[in-house]
């Protein structure tokens, strides 16, 4: 236990003490253990995930359990520092979340506007709801699924992290009308390393958000489609992808986008807003200069109401019951030399 404290500064027991204290408990970077644990089914009231056994094998980001009151929706941003002295490479993520999670996104912190925190600090709601605060923060990994999600990158493909690099883990839990949190919120993420000599290509990410959507009661299959190009330097291979919208969403698709030919082969389709498909190991080729076309279709019941001051329509925003999203998360390799990509 002392070893754990000295290395990462936080303890699992801290999380236990904080259990039930509501949002924004102190996060932890734990370690030891073997591999992924097990979770209950239907619903997932608790999750376990043993951290990598040693720092050489990796590290864990752990958000201790927190409660949500009925009708509550909480978005929290937890800040972590990559506590290594040399660059490290991660090619395997393990993610565990309890039922009620709406999304979990991890970003690399870049331009700091009104959202920030030191290693181990967090911001609950407030600035953590305002996406302009992370508009130029590259995506690391995301999951919208309860239980365990395993993101094993192809052999030789890895995310690179710099010594002392700051990360932000954003978690959104909902215990409201369209989504419930029957137990506590809890998130565990393992970053499993590979040796630098094994790396043949860095992973690149694209985080695309269509911000200008508006759908209203009675709308049927209203469609919004746009593009995000991320293959700047070379042709790339898409490893994985997932789409995100709220309960009015009926169909989320992604297709390859070619700068000459336009929209091509569809490689992603999802109709489940609350447990969206996270495609992995799909090996989709994208030509240089290309990217994706992504589209969201919505249907709004005549009885639903988003913004009562706007004809009960639903516009872009994170609040599940009253707003809508159309976000795409794409993982590809090799990464562009200069940058990951965010599209708006």
């Amino acid at each position, binding site marked *: 236990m002392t070893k754990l404290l000295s290395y990462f500064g936080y303890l699992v027991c801290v999380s236990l003490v904080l259990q039930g204290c509501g949002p924004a408990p102190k996060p932890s970077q734990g370690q030891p253990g073997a591999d992924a644990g097990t979770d209950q089914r239907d619903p997932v009231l608790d999750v376990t995930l043993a951290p990598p056994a040693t720092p050489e094998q990796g590290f864990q980001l752990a958000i201790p359990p927190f409660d949500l009151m009925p009708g509550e929706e909480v978005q929290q941003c937890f800040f972590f520092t990559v506590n290594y002295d040399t660059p490290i490479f991660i090619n395997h993520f393990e993610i565990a979340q309890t039922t009620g999670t709406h999304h979990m996104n991890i970003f690399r912190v870049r331009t700091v506007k009104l959202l920030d925190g030191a290693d181990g600090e967090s911001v609950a709601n407030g600035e953590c709801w305002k996406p302009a605060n992370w508009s*130029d*923060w590259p995506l690391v990994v995301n999951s919208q699924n309860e239980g365990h999600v395993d993101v094993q990158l192809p052999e030789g493909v890895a995310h690179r992290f710099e010594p002392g690099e700051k990360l932000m883990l954003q978690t959104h839990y909902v215990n409201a009308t369209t989504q419930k949190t029957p137990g506590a919120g809890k998130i565990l993420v393992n970053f499993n390393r590979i040796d630098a000599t094994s790396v043949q290509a860095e992973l690149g990410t694209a985080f695309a958000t269509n911000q200008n959507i508006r759908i209203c009661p009675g709308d049927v299959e209203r469609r919004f489609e746009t593009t995000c190009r991320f293959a700047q330097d070379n042709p790339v291979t898409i490893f994985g992808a997932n789409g995100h919208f709220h309960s009015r969403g009926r169909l989320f698709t992604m297709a390859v986008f070619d700068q000459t030919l336009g929209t091509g082969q569809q490689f992603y389709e999802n109709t489940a807003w609350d447990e969206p498909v996270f495609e992995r190991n799909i090996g989709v080729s994208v030509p240089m200069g290309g990217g994706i076309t992504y589209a969201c279709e919505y249907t709004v019941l005549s009885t639903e109401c988003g913004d009562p001051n706007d004809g009960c329509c639903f516009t872009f925003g994170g609040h599940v019951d009253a707003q809508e999203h159309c976000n795409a998360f794409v993982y590809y390799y090799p990464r562009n030399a200069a940058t990951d990509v965010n599209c708006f």
Partner: protein
Amino acid sequence: MLLKASATLAMAAAIAGCASSASRETDSAAEGGNDVDAYGSDRRADTEAGSADLVVLPAQFTEENMPLRMLADGDPLDLWAAPQGGHVVLLSAKVKHLSTDTATLKVQVRRPDTGLIVAVESRTVAMVAVAGEPDTKQPDLRSRSQAAHVPLCPDYDAIDIVDQPVDVLVQVTGLYTDPPAIGEATRRLVPSCDHTTPEDEPLCRCECQAGYFLGKCKPDAGTDGAMANDAAE
């Protein structure tokens, strides 16, 4: 499939004034059954001969409940700061001979010299009659969401977006009509940061300059294309 594509291309070539000449200079209806655009690509071959022809007059959305700004070749195209980040252009159109109240508004932006596509955006919009203009409709101007928001910046490419001409194809497809109704027109326009707010202009120019990378436009970047002051953040 190849035969079908060849036939489509042949029909496109055979039709005088087809999309390749449905061009920057004219406001034209897309030909029925022709699914080849000005660059011979990115078109769906799902319309048949006999489709109703629409006349599309490209325009820029300005403000909610304000008139559209009609666009001619060489006009500036205002870049607008989207709420979460980036800069988009807001495209719309007036459409003649559209019988339905619902349409797909699709906008495609290309580089004039290479024809490479920079971005494509399409959305379902509600069409309403234009007062004082018979047989003419436009997207409902009460909401910004009824304009295509074409994401041009950040510009990760090697060529600037700001102040560089682009070809903008505006295509309108009437929904729930039989026969299908489709029309399109292209304008050569120049994306501009000139009409952003003074606070936003440095960010607009930074994000819309070639070679963007995440984190480039922070106030203290100090590199070529970096922001001029803190206000823009």
